[in-house]
């Protein structure tokens, strides 16, 4: 079971992302803390189309664009990012109706469910996951929210810029291990 977390600013710029493998899997936890997430490059779509039609976690032999870290699991990075991106529309729809912060699962794509959490400052936390785990995910989102708040209070952090702090990363991972 792997989980992908994306933190997006109100202007939908990526602030942070994390890929977390549940400890039950033999693969080591790998993260892709990219300081600049590649913009959705069009040349990747040829690859993603095949992935979409195949649509499972089989190892694909696409070339991965430089910049994105190759993951050990074989899931195509671009599919993940595309799913996350696509879910933004749905999130905004739901946001208008519901005022709660934790929007449970807003979208589903083959085996991936997208859960979202919207902070009062309009930061969006998006989690792609395969299994259903509402309570754990809610606790995880709250944890990430608190860690995010602490990062924002750091005077050296510019608002809505990518979070590169190792401390933040470590703590998010620890929280992911705990709840996911």
């Amino acid at each position, binding site marked *: 079971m792997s989980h992908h977390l994306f933190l997006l600013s109100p202007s939908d710029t990526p602030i942070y992302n994390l890929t977390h493998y549940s400890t039950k899997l033999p693969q080591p936890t790998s993260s892709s803390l990219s300081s600049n997430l590649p913009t959705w490059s069009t040349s990747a779509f040829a690859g993603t189309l095949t992935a979409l039609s195949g649509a499972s976690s089989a190892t694909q032999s696409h070339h991965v664009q430089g910049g994105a870290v190759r993951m050990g699991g074989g899931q195509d990075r671009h599919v993940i990012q595309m799913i996350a991106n696509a879910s933004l529309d749905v999130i905004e729809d739901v946001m208008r109706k519901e005022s709660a912060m934790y929007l449970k699962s807003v979208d589903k794509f083959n085996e991936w469910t997208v859960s979202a959490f919207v902070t009062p400052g309009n930061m969006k936390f998006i989690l792609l996951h395969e299994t259903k785990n509402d309570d754990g995910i809610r606790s995880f989102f709250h944890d990430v929210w608190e860690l995010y708040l*602490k*990062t924002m*209070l*750091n*005077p*050296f*952090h510019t608002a809505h810029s990518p979070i590169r*702090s190792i*401390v933040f990363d470590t703590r998010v991972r620890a929280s992911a291990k705990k709840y996911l």
Partner: protein
Amino acid sequence: MATTSKQYKAIGEDLWKSRTDKINSELFSLTYGALVVQLIQDYEDYAVVNKQLEKMGYNIGTRLIEDFLARSSLGRCSDFREVGEVAAKVGFKSFLNITPTVTHSGVPPPSARPTSTVQQSGVPGSSFILTLDENPLAEFVELPDEALEGGLWFSNVLCGVLRGALEMVQMQVQVEFLSDVLRGDESTEIRVTLLKYLEEEVPVGDD
């Protein structure tokens, strides 16, 4: 007039409690953090920022000492050791609500001048180290790598405050940071070294 350490603690506690205008600590930390970040952006040289923070602290300290002496109504410290105790237990407590631990070391340099003319006893060269276990100025702060490499002492304003305050009571001191948890060290330590007493200073005024 020998006040024990416990009495100092009690005085400090009282002063803190009787202070009516306190501010929110988060506001304080955020304001100071914004100040430091702005200085960094303006000067872009961490050594210069350190100096500026110390200068600012010096200005604060020269004024703060009056407020402190008025409220605490403590008399002159008999020796430099007592200065350390009072600064830590009463001074820091009444202004920041923290009580750093004091470690004294009265090692004079070999070429110490005779101190017979000095009223207070305390050999120039003696020092004490204040160990802060919590630092309200640096809540939530994480130094970026450039600041770590550049040698920024985030709370350097405290050094200036101590230097300014002690200079107003006729002590010339050198105050510097030894370590800082923000930089990854074990603890935050400030060393205050007595350089000389300023007895010779004649107050500027008409005779």
